[in-house]
C-alpha cells in the first residue's frame, strides 16, 4: 500500500527580494508513489528540486499545484543536514525533544533516549551542547533520533554523506534492519554507492521533471549518460 502519493505535483517559487531571478518553476507534473517497505533514492544535480520535493513529502511545503496524499496516520521524519537541533541544548536534550515532537509520550521518549545514545556513539559529547559538535556528529544524532522515534517514513537529505565510513556502514545496516515492512525511506544522495547499496528504487530528477525511474543501477547509468 502506498504510504505517500504525489499526483501531478508542481512547485513554483515567487521572486525573492534582492534576487534578479523572477518567479521560476522548480518542477512540474511529478507523479510518484512511495510504498511501505521501500527505500527510494532521489538523485539529480544541485538545484533540481530534491530538497523541495522532500519538504513537500514532509508536509512542510504545500505544492503550487497537484495533489499530495498520505495514508492515514503516517508520521514523517525529515533529516536535513545541520538543521533540526537547538544548538544550545545537549544531544540528550535534543534527542528527547525530537521524540516528544514526533509524538512519543514522555515516558516512551525517556526510554528511547538511551537507545539513541547507544546508536550515536557520541560518548561524553551526548551531554554537551550541540554547538560543540562536528557536522558528522550532528548527522549521527539526527539519524539516531529519527530511527528510534518510530516515524514511518524517514526522509533523508544528504545527511548520511557526512558521517565517517564506520557510521555510514552502521547507518546502512540499521536502515536495512530497522526498516520493517510498514516503514519507508527516501534518500537524497550524491553518493552513488550509497544509492546502489541501500535503495530498492531510484528516480532521477532534472529539467523540472522525473527523467528516469526504476532500478537504482539503471537510473544511475541514465544520470551519467544524461549529463555527459
Amino acid at each position, binding site marked *: 500500500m502506498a504510504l505517500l502519493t504525489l499526483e501531478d505535483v508542481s512547485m513554483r*517559487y515567487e521572486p*525573492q527580494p534582492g534576487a534578479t531571478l523572477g518567479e521560476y518553476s522548480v518542477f512540474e507534473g511529478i507523479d510518484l508513489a512511495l510504498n511501505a517497505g521501500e527505500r527510494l533514492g532521489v538523485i539529480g544535480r544541485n538545484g533540481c528540486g530534491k530538497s523541495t520535493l522532500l*519538504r513537500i513529502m*514532509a*508536509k*512542510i*511545503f*504545500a505544492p503550487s499545484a497537484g495533489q499530495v496524499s498520505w495514508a492515514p496516520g503516517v508520521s*514523517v*521524519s*525529515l*533529516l*536535513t543536514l*545541520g*538543521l*533540526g*537541533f*537547538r544548538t*544550545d*541544548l545537549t544531544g540528550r*536534550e535534543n534527542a*528527547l*525533544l525530537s521524540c516528544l*515532537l*514526533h509524538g512519543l509520550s514522555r515516558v516512551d521518549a525517556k526510554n528511547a533516549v538511551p537507545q539513541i545514545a547507544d546508536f550515536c556513539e557520541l560518548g561524553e559529547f551526548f551531554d554537551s*551542547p550541540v554547538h560543540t559538535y562536528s557536522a558528522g556528529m550532528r548527522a549521527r544524532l539526527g539519524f539516531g533520533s529519527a530511527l528510534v522515534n518510530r516515524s514511518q517514513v524517514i526522509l533523508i537529505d544528504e545527511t548520511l554523506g557526512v558521517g565517517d565510513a564506520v557510521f555510514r556502514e552502521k547507518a546502512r545496516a540499521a536502515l536495512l534492519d530497522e526498516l520493517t515492512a510498514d516503514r519507508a525511506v527516501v534518500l537524497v544522495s550524491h553518493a552513488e554507492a550509497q544509492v546502489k547499496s541501500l535503495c530498492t528504487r531510484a528516480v532521477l530528477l532534472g529539467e523540472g521533471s522525473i527523467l528516469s525511474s526504476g532500478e537504482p543501477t539503471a537510473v544511475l547509468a541514465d544520470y551519467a549518460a544524461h549529463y555527459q
Partner: protein
Amino acid sequence: MRMRGEARQYYLGYLWWLMEPMLYVAVFYFVFFSLLNTRQPDYLQFLMVGKLTFIWFSKSVNQAANCIEINKGLVAQLRIPQALFPVATVVEGFYRQAVVFAFLLAFLAATGYTFSAAWVWLVPVILLNAALITGCAMAAALLVCFQRDFRLLIQLGTVFMLFISGIFWDINSVQNAELVTWLMRLNPVAALIDAYRQILLYGSAPDAQVLLWALAEAALILALMTLAFQRLQFWMARRVITR
C-alpha cells in the same frame, strides 16, 4: 528546555530573571526620583508595579518576534503548527514572570502594602494580561516572518509603549480626564498597568469598563492571529526556509 539552555549561557543564570527588571527599576528610580525630583508618594513601589509588569509584555513580545527564525530548524523538518513557537515563548515568559510577581508581592508586603480584598482582581487582570501578550507575541512572530525589518520596528514599538503607557509617570496625572480614558481604551497595556496599581497600591478595584475594552482588544488580536496562523502555515514555512 529552552530556558535551561538560555540560563546556561550566562554566568548568573536564573538570577537574571530578577536582576534584569530590577536594574531597569534602579535606573528609572535614579533618574526620576533622585535627579528630577518626582514626588509621587512611594515612588519606588509605584515604579516597580509599573515596570515589573510592563517588562513581562515587552520581553515576551520581543522574544516572540525572533522565535520562528530561531526555530527555523524545526520549521524546516517538522510539520507542527507554527503558533506553537510564540505560544511557547509566552509560556516561558510566564514562568519568569511568576518569579517576578512573587518578588514584587513580597516586596510590597514587606514595605507595608498588606493584602486586601482587591487583590482577588489580580487573577482576571493577570489572565487578561497573558491573553494580550499571547496575541501580540503571535502578531510579532508573524510580522517578522513576513519581513525581518519588523524586528527593529517591534523593538522601537515596545520602547515607545514604555513611554506612553505610564510606567514611570501616573497616567491619571494627565489633566484632561476624557483623554486619560481614551489613552487607556486605546492602549490596553496602559489600562492593565493602571489596574495593577489600583489593586496593589491603592487596594481598590480597577475600572471594569476600561478592562472590558482591553479584554475586547486582546480577544480580537488573539482571534485574528489564530486565524492567520492557520491560514498561513505553508506560506510561513516557505518564507522562513527559502530566504
